[in-house]
């Protein structure tokens, strides 16, 4: 008996095959180019693009936690919006308390106040995330229906508690002095705050990628997303990992909430719920569980929202639905399908 006769050969993947994973990345410059062609004026386009990128970054910050939680534990958290609202309220309360620092004519003090506010918001929402996971989400593992229902119930309760604590009225907030005003490049005026938002978003994305690809915890999280049972079989407690990711995701939602609140300059209890609609669109476009897809999806949604708001303001939100439909027609499980349909 001899081995069956076959001679395996290694063929280099064709350029098209090697490019395929990068195709979604190309969508962002493509959309920007279409936007430039449709708007015509370079300075307006630049202003809109930066606004779009800033919005995209903030949505990414809010959405990344949600998508990781889903990927890791197959848990969908409709109450994520509550963390966004709470983050905004805690952060803004901190900023108002530090008004001496935010109003001062010193860049260092302004930034310090903002960082303190962000830390306060992230600690508050992180702690809340821990409690939320323990009390509301944990008993609902494995049943999507129950998860959607109880997390929605959690959202209602938290929103009402915000009303109880902070009162029913919207709170207006002005940004720290350094982040007010705008810079001009040629004819284009770009708000300083948007540039700051883009920078924070990029830093966060880079940090997240580093943690996910270069650390052991990141390795475990990625392995958990790919095959949780196997990770457990190798002796790691995936539960603990999951709680960590849930808390981190909630804290990120808090950060996103502060940034979104300062962007809108008004905060209300239902604000989280309103942003969640964009967050869901982004998470679906990116593919549930994929951080990279989520990043690209957020940029696409942010850019498109700003271009369309300028070109045809009446259909701004509908355009995002159209984008989602178009992407799902192309890739039914989102740009990067990490979690197989269960």
């Amino acid at each position: 008996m001899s081995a069956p006769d076959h001679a395996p050969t290694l063929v280099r993947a064709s350029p098209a095959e090697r490019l395929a994973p990068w195709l979604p990345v190309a969508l962002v410059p493509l959309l920007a180019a279409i936007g430039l062609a449709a708007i015509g004026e370079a300075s307006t386009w630049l202003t809109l693009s930066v606004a779009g990128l800033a919005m995209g970054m903030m949505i990414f910050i809010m959405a990344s936690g949600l998508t990781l939680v889903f990927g890791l534990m197959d848990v969908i958290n409709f109450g994520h919006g509550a963390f966004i609202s709470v983050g905004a309220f805690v952060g803004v309360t901190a900023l108002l308390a530090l008004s001496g620092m935010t109003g001062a004519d010193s860049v260092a003090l302004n930034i310090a106040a903002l960082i303190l506010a962000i830390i306060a918001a992230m600690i508050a929402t992180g702690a809340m995330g821990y409690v939320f996971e323990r009390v509301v989400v944990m008993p609902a593992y494995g049943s999507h229906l129950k998860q959607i229902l109880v997390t929605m119930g959690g959202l209602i309760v938290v929103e009402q508690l915000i009303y109880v604590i902070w009162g029913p009225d919207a709170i207006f907030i002005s940004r720290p002095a350094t982040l007010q005003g705008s810079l001009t490049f040629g004819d284009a005026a770009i708000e300083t705050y948007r540039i700051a938002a883009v920078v924070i978003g990029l830093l966060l994305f880079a940090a997240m990628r580093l943690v996910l690809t270069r650390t052991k915890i990141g390795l475990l999280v990625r392995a958990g997303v790919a095959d949780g049972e196997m990770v457990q079989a190798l002796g790691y407690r995936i539960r603990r990992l999951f709680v960590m990711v849930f808390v981190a995701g909630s804290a990120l939602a808090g950060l996103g909430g502060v940034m979104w609140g300062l962007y809108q300059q008004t905060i209300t209890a239902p604000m989280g719920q309103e942003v969640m609609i964009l967050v869901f669109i982004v998470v679906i476009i990116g593919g549930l569980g994929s951080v990279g897809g989520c990043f690209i999806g957020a940029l696409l949604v942010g850019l498109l929202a700003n271009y369309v708001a300028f070109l045809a303001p009446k259909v701004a939100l509908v355009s995002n639905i159209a984008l989602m439909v178009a992407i799902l027609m192309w890739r039914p499980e989102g740009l990067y399908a990490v979690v197989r349909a269960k």
Partner: protein
Amino acid sequence: MLIRLISGDRPRSLVLTIVLVAILVGLALAPFLFPGTRSLETAARICIFIVLVASYDLLLGYSGIVSFAHTMFFGIGAYGVAIALNGMGPGWGPILLGAAAGAALAAALALVIGLFSLRVKAIFFAMITLAVASAFAVLVSQLSGFTGGEDGLNYRIPRVLTPAFKLFDQRVFGVSVNGRVLCYYFVFFASLVLFLAMLRVVNSPFGRVLQAIRENAFRAEAIGYRVVYYRTFANVLSAGAAALAGVLIAIWLRYTGPATTLSLEIMIDVLLIVVIGGMGTMYGAVVGATLFIVAQNYLQNLMGIAADVTAGVPILSGILDPNRWLLWLGLLFILSVYLFPTGVVGRLRERKS
């Protein structure tokens, strides 16, 4: 005969039977038992919500699909009638035309959304419907030339249904039977027919297949039922019924606006009612809607009193404020999902056995 009318779906509990009969009699004789404008408003709202909630239960309870677009279909029906009455003046023609157009549009939209998103993953459906519904609400408030925008539409309905019309010159049992009472009976009987029709649907072989899919979609597919088609058809039926409920509220209120039909608050109310009343039982919709709306109209007064009593205590008076009643409902909702997933009706039925 009676059993046939309720499609053989008996309440299976003595207490439940008594409660259901009491609700039926109460609603049927509402204008005479509880005279007054406010109680008639409450009764009509209960009838309409029973239909709306039952149609949502068809989806959530019987098919295991979570949709957040139900108020969108409700709104489409309401706006269909509103736009027709607004454009063509009062008459039965515009009502029929608006109702048919609204129901057809709702069904078509449900078909598209269903075929598009139900084949991928049930959880996508919840998110996609949420996004589509909010986009629709924004669209309606933007197209103000057509829909009246945020202000909504005020219109006149046929004179027979308005308070100015008197059926009898004398009072009947001390109540003057005017067009408003006729309008109430129109809403009541339409709701009753729609409810019985839905009861028929869930007790048909089709309804059994839906329940099989809810329990185990994979197995149902293996037996040979096309899960996507069944789910989509359930979505279409439920959307059509919701649109007809919207038609009723448009006629009853003589006003249609985003706040009365499309808002997410109504969606959350519907979700709360279904879960508290009992998922997967049509009677849950009846009990839940009645409890909820009576509570909404009268319990808030009680909370107001409680808040006044505790006015000095900072947090306690805050959580007892009548505007915070959703806080308590939210807690009740979470508890009922965990502790009584079958809701009030399920508890009543268990007690018997």
